[in-house]
């Protein structure tokens, strides 16, 4: 019996290897493999499930795993990790027979640690940014055990007045250095001005230095929103969200750390708030909510357009999030030919030559497609049960 299970698992691995090699979100053969993991929100929960490919017409929550609302998806080595931020839990899953099967026991993080981001260094090492603790947890993702922690309290602005937390958020590893964006809040949603990034040596797990730049504010939006990312040249881009448009002197924009350097590139700064954008009401956008890098300096993401916000704001009906193409090399933005979506329904991922946008737009709730190679749009291809929150392409 044991041998049979072993053979079956070998077969499963083999099949997944074949399908992985295709990288085609529209497969033509009758394979059972799952290409996407996504989460939708309903009420106070997030429902995580798989769906096969972009030929699917409708997704359902019937076989979904249930988590607290602020739960984030990460994939590494064929596994799917769910970071349940509010509940401070980390879960690891594998895909089996179209379902998510939990591997190892659930990892418990300290209450209030608000884990928001997971960066993998290897099969045995990953970093969890604990926004609420001011620490990075080092874990072994294979065993799901904590192996260490890095205390960031000395990098907190305001440590003299007792604030020991620089609020570490999204991070990326380049050339043996972990770049961690720090929100540096005075209080929730109220940042100190300036962009702060902490550099950590992944061999020693010792902080190297904290770099800062006063041209923009909040080098992380607490959770994963598509940055920092590294382009083909090895340059690292980080988007500073300002104060989500709330604070006059907290400016947003992209900053860059060039390959081989460990400081911000003073010759590069790309804010979108100052650009006059045709084809949108008011010709202004005030921050980028989330984004995905597709190569050649191009990103696709959601801009918040104040012109589409009612007076007073109607958070249920206002479709103020608008999809845009961003060119970080030429510092240009272009409105895409999709209608806007609501602030509570905007997810995205890259799948082959496609950008998949999860939106609650004028045609309904679900996934809208854009082939960025051929510049082709497919409105509402897949309907979802629930509001799209996060999506990952598994190939």
């Amino acid at each position, binding site marked *: 019996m044991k041998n049979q299970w072993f053979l079956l698992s070998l077969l499963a691995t083999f099949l997944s290897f074949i399908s992985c090699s295709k990288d085609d979100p529209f497969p033509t053969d009758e394979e059972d493999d799952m290409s996407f993991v996504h989460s939708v929100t309903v009420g106070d*929960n997030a429902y995580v499930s798989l769906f096969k490919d972009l030929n699917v017409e409708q997704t359902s929550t019937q076989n979904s795993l249930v988590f607290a609302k602020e739960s984030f998806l990460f994939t590494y080595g064929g596994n799917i990790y769910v970071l349940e931020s509010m509940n401070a839990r980390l879960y690891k899953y594998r895909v089996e027979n179209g379902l998510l099967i939990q591997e190892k026991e659930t990892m418990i993080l*300290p*209450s*209030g640690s608000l884990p928001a981001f997971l960066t993998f260094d290897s099969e045995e090492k990953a970093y969890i940014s604990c926004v609420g603790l001011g620490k990075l947890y080092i874990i072994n993702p294979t065993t799901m055990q904590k192996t260490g922690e890095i205390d960031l309290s000395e990098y907190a602005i305001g440590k003299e007045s007792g604030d020991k937390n620089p609020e570490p958020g999204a991070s990326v590893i380049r050339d043996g250095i972990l770049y961690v964006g720090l929100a540096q809040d005075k*209080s929730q949603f109220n940042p100190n001005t300036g962009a702060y990034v902490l550099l950590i040596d992944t061999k020693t797990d010792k902080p190297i230095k904290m770099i800062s730049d006063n041209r923009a504010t909040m080098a992380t939006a607490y959770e994963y929103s598509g940055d920092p990312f590294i382009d083909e040249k090895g340059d690292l881009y980080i988007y500073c969200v300002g104060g989500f448009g709330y604070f006059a002197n907290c400016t947003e924009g992209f900053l860059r750390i060039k390959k081989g350097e460990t400081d911000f590139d003073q010759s590069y700064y790309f804010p979108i708030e100052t650009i006059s954008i045709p084809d949108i009401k008011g010709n202004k956008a005030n921050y980028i909510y989330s984004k995905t890098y597709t190569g050649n300096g191009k990103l696709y993401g959601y801009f918040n357009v104040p012109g589409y916000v009612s007076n007073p704001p109607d958070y249920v*009906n206002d479709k103020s999030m608008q999809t845009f193409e961003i060119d970080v090399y030429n510092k240009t933005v272009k409105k895409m030919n999709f209608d806007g979506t609501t602030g509570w329904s905007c997810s995205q991922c890259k799948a082959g030559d496609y950008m998949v946008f999860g939106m609650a737009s004028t045609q309904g709730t679900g996934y809208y497609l854009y082939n960025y190679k051929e510049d082709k749009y497919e409105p509402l291809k897949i309907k979802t049960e*629930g509001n799209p929150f996060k999506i990952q392409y598994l190939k």
Partner: protein
Amino acid sequence: MGICCFPMISWAQVFLSGRIVDKKTNEPVVGASVYIRKNQVGDNANDNGLYRIKLPQNGTYLVEVSFIGYKTIKQSVTVNRNTTKNFFLEESTEVLNEVVVKASSQQAEINHIRKSPMAVTVVDGAKLRGRSTGIEEVLTRTSGIKVRKSGGLGSSSKMSIHGLEGKRVAIYIDGFPLNSPDGSFDINDIPIDAIKYIEIYKGIVPAEYGSDGLGGAINVVTREDECDLVGFTQEFASFGTSKTLVSVKKMFEKPGIQIGGGFFHNKSDNNYKMTYPVFETNLPSSAYQEVIRNNDYYRSTMYNVGLTFTKFWFDKIELECAFYNNKKGIQALDFDSRFSHTHGTNIMPTLTLEKKNFLFKNLEFKSGLVTPIIHTHLVDTARTKRQWDGTITNTMGETDDNLLNYSDDKQFEIRHKLNLKYKLKQHTFNLNNQFTYSRYRPKDDYTAEYVGFDPSGFPSNMKGNTLGLAHEYSSRNNKLQNSLMFSLYYLNSGIYRTSDKIVDESESVKKEPKKTKINNFYYGISEGISYEFFKGVRGKFSLSHNVRLPDTEELFGDGVTVKPSVDLNPEISNNINLGLIMDKSNFMGLSRFQLETNLYYMYITDMISLFPADIRMIYTNLGKTQIMGGDFDLKIDVTPQLYSYFNLTYQDIRDKLKWTTNDQSVKNPTYDKQVPNIPRFYFNYGLEYHTEGLLGKHEISRIYIDASYVHDFDWSWQMSNLPEQRKKWLIPRSHLFTAGFQQSIWKNKVSLGFEVENIFNKESYMEFKKPLQGRTFKIKLRFNWFGDESSGGAMSL
């Protein structure tokens, strides 16, 4: 008597009957109550003033005859087979209203409320005297209502009446909204011995409360004994709980002056054991542990003084002032919080005026003015927190807002209620007006010092006025009753638009955002009819269109995570109730048989719910809910000594919002699904044996057992069919038992009570991940001396 009588069912037909008339006019006093307390049997005079009571055997009985506006008669009557006895009621020259009638007519008053066209359940306070039970425990065992506690004494609790919950259920004390600075005033703070009765409205709330609401309301009516009295109660319970109550009253008959005072002090450590974590699967086995719930203490103290004049132009002028303060620890539950707490004071001066023949005959005037002055503090300055495994981690406070707080919030309110009642033969006209002014001034210098500005929100003012008109008709024989009510609501409010940019950091000052004014009228209407088909069997039917105005929190937000909501509309519900009540004495060999059942339908629109607003939350009008259900309540006095009850509630609550957005582009994924986090099925049952004379003449003994079952219910929408997943979100069923006994001594001046709650020490929840206490022991001593012995004793049958 006593135990010997327990199995005896009389074969002989023994009746006491007669006529009750006005001594002066010789007219029948329709509805007057005739009651024999010892046997708990009685009747109300019909349209000819006739009554008839069936008795178990011949003997001498103490008969109490009472009616509102008349002096109560207490007379011993010897009954031999069929005995006729007429009573002549004399109009009372004292203050004449519902509140001042003595305990002897309390049953008649309760019967009168039960017969009204509204779906209402009344809990008789007399039966609770001396019990070690809190009001919440009493309410939760009543049909159609479930109290959802989150912890021990002082913890927040939600009332769920026919599926309406939280703010959708209004709570009143003597018709005034229960108010507290920070919502911490626990209804369980009200001493159970001070309760005359509790009304639970399940569809229409009487216009005289002058308040908005969707039809669910609880009104706790407190006792007002018209005699000198001294009372003292001391109760101790597990987990460091104690309750002390002192009350005194002195009457000066000649000048018509009454002086009264009261004091209570309630305290609990609530340090019971609980399991952590809960409702989770596949955790390392070492993660599960039994922990002590710390920092969940509660202390409350109230002083109350009152001065009443009864011989001025007004029949009653009452000046009262209550001073209340409390302190409460905040236990986070998912970690071991040790420091955060709230404390506050509430000073409530009250002036009440009443006159029976105001301006002209039969016009009754009542006016109540309350001006609460509220001062509260949230203290949350911890920079480290203790995890349940003992490790210490950094934090910015122990509460959810991730801020350090030492707030200094002030609230001032003026509430005035005017009630004019005019009775013309079978018709009663009611005009009610309630005016409310609320001023809120939040402040937090401690937070401002490190954040750079005060995020505690902007000052806000709100004015509201409710005008209610009601017409009640009662046929001469009391068989038919009709009630028609119309309410007009006015809301005037100024809200700061803090969704705009609010901070100019270069100047480090908070810029004042724009203000939006709200000036709107809304209306509510209800119609109810009740008819007595056969003697003791009455049907009820009511329809209502109800309105709940948004409250200050929903309109103004909390300054940090909840934004102000400028264009929030009231919630609307349209309700239909169909009811049947049956009350028969000496029925099928039973001493008394009472049955109440209701079928109800509610359709609620514009439900106010929290919704994500970019990085914060906001209250919006989103949601339509349909509630259909029924409750059934059976009370049987098998003999005058043996009492049993059973009640059951089942309801189907469904989301009826088809589209999330107005343009109908976004389907609501929960359309037609069961609305979660509301108990749907529950029942209660119990047995009580009480008797007089077992341990001495006039002494009362009581022993009882109560059981309460709540079926499991989902905390969140049931969207996944995987059973393992559902376990994480399912609040498990509970079936809990409580038992106790009481004994009076010293001619019923002193009572001793002992009670065990949750006898089998079961783990139970009424809220998600909030474990309730296990087995709890309670012991209570009560002393009561009344100048007029008819007012009762330490215990009551």
